[in-house]
């Protein structure tokens, strides 16, 4: 048996990587220019930007915490995008997930060892249910999932805020957050005193699970076929609507899990109003840059999380105005998303072509 030729994945991986790196480099240069313009001590500020996230155990914890959250939300979006569904419901799922995790944590179970697994389970179920809704509305009525999921986000945020304020906050305190959960209900820190907690573990497990689901199970293949060509899927006997709804439901479960990671993680250990601060939405960016590939999601999250943290610390420690960080972040997104043509690329393409040509002629009969 002759060996099959493989589509040249390494090459395309290298090309993608080189493109991303060069875009990143340009973005950093732009960021540096902005820092130069707005800071009295630009070198110091920029140094903070580049090194602060790894400066101490505590800052590394913050970075990892961001990575965990960005990974989960990125996965959440990747999964629905794989099925060609443009549900933007991650945020709503995070809220209902967080709420249900909080309800478990604040119940008598909260003091037992069951608090974490049950909290996560409740969060995932709630998120799944919330992800199911727009999917069902689309499958049953043809209602655009973009609109319904967006509206469901707004609804979830407000309803959860209300429950937190009116029912979970200590009576009469006027605080817009619940009391701190019992220790048993908060993820243990992997490195004491930092946010390096179970969240990142769960995120990485989720990456593995999603990758496995998509590329190793029949469900995943069906999902990809539906995403590729829904009519063909129907033709081949794959129930495309059911697959689509199930994808949105599973994605909802991941969103719900992120809700648990939020409220039960060391960063909070309680539920407060408006707790996600829009991070859930940034999963779209992660998913798109990762091209919806589950294994690329944590890689993108690591890089993006690093820049995000670096910018934050520059804001905290230097005289660069906080607002400029948003500008830097925006430029990074714009540049990383762009495709550049560099002088060397033509040559590269020519080399690649020779390769491809050889492939064409030798292919048959192997």
């Amino acid at each position, binding site marked *: 048996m002759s060996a099959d030729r493989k589509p040249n994945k390494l090459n395309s991986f290298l090309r993608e990587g080189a493109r991303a790196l060069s875009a990143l480099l340009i973005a950093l240069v732009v960021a540096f220019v902005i820092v130069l313009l707005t800071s009295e001590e630009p070198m110091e500020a920029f140094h903070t930007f580049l090194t602060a996230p790894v400066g101490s155990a505590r800052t590394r914890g913050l970075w990892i915490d961001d990575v965990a959250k960005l990974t989960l939300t990125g996965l959440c979006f990747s999964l629905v995008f794989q099925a060609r569904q443009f549900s933007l419901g991650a945020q709503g799922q995070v809220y209902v997930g967080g709420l249900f995790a909080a309800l478990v944590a604040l119940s008598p179970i909260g003091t037992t060892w069951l608090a974490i697994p049950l909290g996560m389970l409740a969060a995932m179920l709630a998120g799944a249910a919330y992800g199911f809704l727009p999917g069902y509305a689309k499958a049953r009525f043809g*209602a655009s999932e*973009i609109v319904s999921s967006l509206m*469901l986000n*707004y*609804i979830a945020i407000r309803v959860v805020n209300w429950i937190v304020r009116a029912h979970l906050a200590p009576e009469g305190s006027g605080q817009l957050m619940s009391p701190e959960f019992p220790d048993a209900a908060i993820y243990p820190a992997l490195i004491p005193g930092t946010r390096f907690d179970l969240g990142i573990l769960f995120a990485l497990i989720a990456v593995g699970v999603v990758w496995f689901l998509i590329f190793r199970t029949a469900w995943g293949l069906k999902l990809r076929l539906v995403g590729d060509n829904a009519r063909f899927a129907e033709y081949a006997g794959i129930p495309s609507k059911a697959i689509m709804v199930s994808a949105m439901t599973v994605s909802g479960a991941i969103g719900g899990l992120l809700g648990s990671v939020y409220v039960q993680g060391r960063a909070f250990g309680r539920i407060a109003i408006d707790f996600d601060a829009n991070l859930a939405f940034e999963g779209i*960016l992660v998913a*798109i840059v990762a091209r919806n590939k589950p294994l690329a999601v944590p890689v993108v999250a690591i890089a993006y999380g690093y820049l995000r943290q670096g910018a934050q610390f520059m804001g905290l420690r230097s005289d660069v105005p906080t*607002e400029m960080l948003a500008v830097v972040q*925006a430029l990074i997104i*714009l540049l990383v998303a762009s495709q550049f043509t560099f002088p060397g690329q033509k040559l590269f393409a020519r080399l690649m072509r020779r390769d491809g040509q050889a492939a064409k002629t030798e292919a048959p009969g192997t």
Partner: protein
Amino acid sequence: MTELIAAVFSVTFFVTVIRATTPLLFATIGGLISDLSGALNVALEGMMLIAALTSVIVSVYAPWWIAVLAGCGAGALLGALMGFFHLRLKADVILVGFGVNILATGGTVFILALATGGDKGTSINLPSKSIPRVELPFLENIPVLNLLSGHSLLSWLAGFTVFAVWYFLYRTPRGLWLRGVGEYPAAPEAAGINVTGVRMWSLVASGAFAGLGGAQLAMFNYIGFTRDMTAGRGFIALGAVLLGARHPVGALLAALLFGVFEALSIVMPNLFNWIPGELIQTIPFLVTVIALILFSIRAQRALKARGVATH
């Protein structure tokens, strides 16, 4: 309940609805144009925000209408920026849109601080101008017709815009190009139409309309600028585009629906103290979801009636 009915059938309620609808309608029209050309414009929010700030700052030094034009122009410029990254540098349009939004949140505060000499929150120490209100005193006492009085000049413009955009899309050659490019780009491409150019102009127009929405928000609904003052209206407009079945009249109806329930959520707290504020705030969104589902059921039926299989 009677109080609610009284409030809803008052002239002021109507005026509130129109006021709440106007910025949304402009943004929705903007979203509609880029959507029809094949690009989902998630940057409406950021475009409105930057336009709002631009018009406020310009209105300090220039007449109101120049300020409105400046806001419109700022939106258009952002549209061109999006076009550059999306069409020239082939960046994903959603990523570019989010980039613009993030740029807007930070950039507006930075520029506001420069313009006000350090204020990072509001423009209250800038004497900004407002868009004139169109008073029609002779209609004051005629029922129904008196509803026409007291609106922003831009509200009238918005109404006219719906018609103009409809005319443009369905009655002019360029409108035909735009719809063709959005639906099936290969066709206009083969017909020798510059597809990229059409997309570029659509994004620019999209930004210009969103910019008018921002100007209305900062020069009429509230006079002045406050950080993040668009408060999600751009995303709601995005929903309204799809809810309105990607048609100008649909966009108008969707924006109005939202305006009505926004206005309702504004009069309700004063009448129903016992309903938690957060729940009242969900009303416009709930109504949108319900409207969307009802609308989709109807559309499904209509499709069936035309004999198009939907399975």
